[in-house]
């Protein structure tokens, strides 16, 4: 296997590295506790101070990435940079849970959600000088909805109902959809729907992926880069079109943001504590205490735009074809133990497949309570009986299931290690291949690999995530679910829509149990004591409103 050969040595190394990291952390903690090192220098965290103008914020991302084309794959590494460079038509305000005006000063839909009108804010320009007017918005929406053949850009999955845009006048556009989509407006708030200059859209694929060539209307503009090592963004002094609810309505306080990369998880806490970075993403739960004791901050950014972390179920191997088995596994997970052992206070146990703060969230936690006895009797009912080694069997097949996931989350592997223990008690063997990217390359498209550990962006309904036959979660199109998704998307009034979104959650989590939900998506950032920063509903840092106090 091409990917395999190359990376075979990486997985065991990663694992050993994780152990070494744990050892290092432990020794660091010990030394700190002995008072042998005072490196942290506990300054009091500045909380309610006035914003400070100027300065450079150094932000350490996880992996360098070089595909910055707006709508292709939604990696955090990419969104966290683009969020400061590109504006969107609308903004999802996490506090009120509502969509508010941004580049669209007004937006509305017709009664059956097939036609939407956006009033474009006047006087907004892209950083290359091109006006952000109705024509520019139309050009962007066309690419989102239809892709761009000449630059090999594929349509955005959240815009699958898109038909066309009509420029009504200089600052008004009217969007026609092929079919009703109650989630269309929300999707326009996504970083993946960021607006770029029409001149950017004329570039070829490589050009549109190159952060140096992308021109947006955001509060920061690209200044320089060292490929794979850093990106420097400089503030745009004339920025005056922040989202309606943003505390800072003008230009960014910071002069510059420098994005660097720390692929090595063991250094992230130390980077903040030694003051070499002001903000770092991807802190390990084990490092959180060290960061706060040093007087610095642990900032959990809630993934309101995302599903909970889950083990999505593929039924291809046949072992999980019976929903009773899936339901048994759902209640066979002790989520509180997961939080207590593997996670931290920054994490919240999932109450459904949607985030607790997401519009339409319905609390299913009572049905998700840990109940090994119920799990056992469900498995008995399904005909799986314990074999000599304690693992259940049916028709000569063992109930041995496999999980795959990327290594993007720092907690996913230990989480499945604990679940492996929990399931053993109900007679199920879990083969844990989580965080093994090499295995993932083959497993992602293999319906016989029973679980895919993941979380996905979901702007409203869950249709785009679980609907298509090609969806990566279940690799299967479920007829009943798809009827439900279609009804939800077509729902005309808000109350009805909410009801159907709730029904989707119940179907996916309880009745069909195709998503074993674990914890709400969260990205845990470490911040130096003097750093003031908030995050979007998609966990991206809002550098436009960030500042640094002296020190």
């Amino acid at each position, binding site marked *: 296997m091409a*990917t395999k050969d190359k990376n075979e040595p990486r997985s065991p190394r990663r694992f050993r590295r994780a152990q070494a990291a744990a050892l290092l952390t432990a020794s660091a903690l010990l030394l700190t506790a002995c008072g042998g090192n005072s490196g942290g220098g506990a300054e009091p965290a500045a909380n309610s101070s006035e914003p400070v103008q100027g300065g450079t914020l150094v932000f350490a991302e996880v992996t360098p990435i070089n595909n910055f084309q707006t709508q292709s794959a939604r990696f955090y590494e990419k969104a966290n940079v683009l969020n400061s460079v590109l504006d969107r038509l609308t903004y999802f305000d996490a506090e009120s849970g509502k969509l508010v005006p941004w580049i669209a000063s007004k937006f509305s839909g017709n009664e059956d959600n097939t036609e939407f009108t956006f009033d474009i804010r006047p006087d907004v320009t892209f950083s290359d000088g091109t006006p952000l007017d109705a024509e520019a918005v139309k050009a962007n929406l066309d690419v989102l909805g239809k892709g761009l053949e000449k630059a090999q850009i594929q349509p955005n999955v959240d815009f699958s109902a898109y038909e066309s845009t009509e420029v009504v006048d200089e600052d008004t556009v009217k969007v026609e959809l092929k079919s009703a989509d109650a989630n269309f407006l929300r999707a326009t708030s996504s970083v993946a729907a960021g607006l770029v200059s029409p001149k950017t859209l004329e570039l070829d694929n490589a050009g549109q992926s190159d952060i140096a060539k992308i021109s947006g209307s955001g509060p920061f503009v690209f200044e320089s880069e060292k490929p794979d*090592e850093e990106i420097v963004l400089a503030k745009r002094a004339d920025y005056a079109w922040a989202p309606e609810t943003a505390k800072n309505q003008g230009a960014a306080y910071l002069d510059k943001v420098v994005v660097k990369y720390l692929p090595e998880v063991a250094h992230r806490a130390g980077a903040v504590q030694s003051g070499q970075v002001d903000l770092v993403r991807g802190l390990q739960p084990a490092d959180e205490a060290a960061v706060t004791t040093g007087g610095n901050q642990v900032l959990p950014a809630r993934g309101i735009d995302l599903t909970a972390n889950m083990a999505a179920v593929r039924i291809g191997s046949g072992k999980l074809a019976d929903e009773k088995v899936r339901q048994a596994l759902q209640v066979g997970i002790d989520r509180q133990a997961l939080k207590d052992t593997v996670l931290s206070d920054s994490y919240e146990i999932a109450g459904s497949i949607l985030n607790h703060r997401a519009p339409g969230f319905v609390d299913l936690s009572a049905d998700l309570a840990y109940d090994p006895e119920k799990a056992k009797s469900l498995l008995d009912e399904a005909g799986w009986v314990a074999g000599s080694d304690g693992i259940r069997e049916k028709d000569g097949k063992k109930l041995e299931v496999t999980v795959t996931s990327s290594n993007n989350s720092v907690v996913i592997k230990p989480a499945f290690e604990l679940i492996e223990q929990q399931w053993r008690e109900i007679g199920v063997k879990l083969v844990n291949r989580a965080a093994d990217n090499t295995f993932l390359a083959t497993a992602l498209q293999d319906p016989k690999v029973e679980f895919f550990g993941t979380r996905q962006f979901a702007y409203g309904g869950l249709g785009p995530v679980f609907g298509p036959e090609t969806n990566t979660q279940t690799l299967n199109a479920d007829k009943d679910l798809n009827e439900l998704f279609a009804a939800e998307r077509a729902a005309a009034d808000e109350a009805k829509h909410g009801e159907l979104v709730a029904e989707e959650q119940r179907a996916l989590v309880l009745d069909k149990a195709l998503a074993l939900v674990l914890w709400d998506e969260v990205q845990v950032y470490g911040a130096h004591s003097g750093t003031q920063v908030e995050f979007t509903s998609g966990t991206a840092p809002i550098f436009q409103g960030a500042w640094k106090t002296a020190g």
Partner: protein
Amino acid sequence: MGRYVAQRIGQALLVIWLAYTVIFLAVQLLPSDPVTIFLSTDSAVEQATIDNMKRQYGYDQPLLVQYFAQLGGLLTGDVGYSLASGEPVALRIGGVVGSTIALAVSAFATAVVLALAVVTVATLTRSALLRKIVLNLPPLFAAVPVFWLGLVLLELLSIRWGVMSLFPDGSFLSLAVPVFVLGVHVSAPIAQVLLKSIDTVYNQPFIDVLRAKGASASWIFFRHALKNAGGPAMTITGITVGTLLAGSVITETVFARSGLGAVVLQAVTTQDVPLVQGLVLLTATVFVAVNLVVDLLYPLLDPRILKSNGQGSPRALAV
């Protein structure tokens, strides 16, 4: 000599072609094609989109057509496009390979110096204790994983003492420390083989003759023993290229340096199969090229290779 050279070069080309073929077949063995794998990093993509992108990158063509098209491209230096960035794979790799070469070459030089130092001290010292300590260094170096040494040094130098940055900033330490970390690791096998073959050489009768003629210990070591022990060490040097490349990738990741390591990380994170394909091919080519150079240099150290009329391979003699 000419025949020997032509044979070696021919063999090298054959190995590269076989490597290309194996990589191509391995990609076909994946449960789906590169485009589908790449697009599955998003939650759900419609079949029409997948088909469209396959067409754009030529993955809808029959396998044989793909095989020869890619082989033809390879001959002209075109190894396809990175699906993630749309950039040609050759350009993407070419843009950063210099940084990795700088690291690898410096680390290799450090490794050779370290290995020679260990062998020289171990052979010439009169102190039994020092000899014992030095003899134990190579196994220690081999046992210390690259990433661990890198982590510990950064933890101490950067986080605890603040004398260097966690990020590459062009300072002396930011190059010297990764070079040292990688050099230490690579020096181990070279020193071990060199020590072993020096031992073998010292057991041969001509050393006694030299001693009887009154040659000094250092004269014997530098003028005779080292040269005769050099062959096997050079062979192992060719083989350490693999260690060197894998070590570079790890070192670059630990030290957040740009280079092949970052590209590997990206290619794997974004499931960019053509980019991985290019990287594997590059690794194979470098491996073959370095071993070709070793094979070509070998007759200079040991003329017996050519006299054996191509019967015994240098490897057979070396071991």
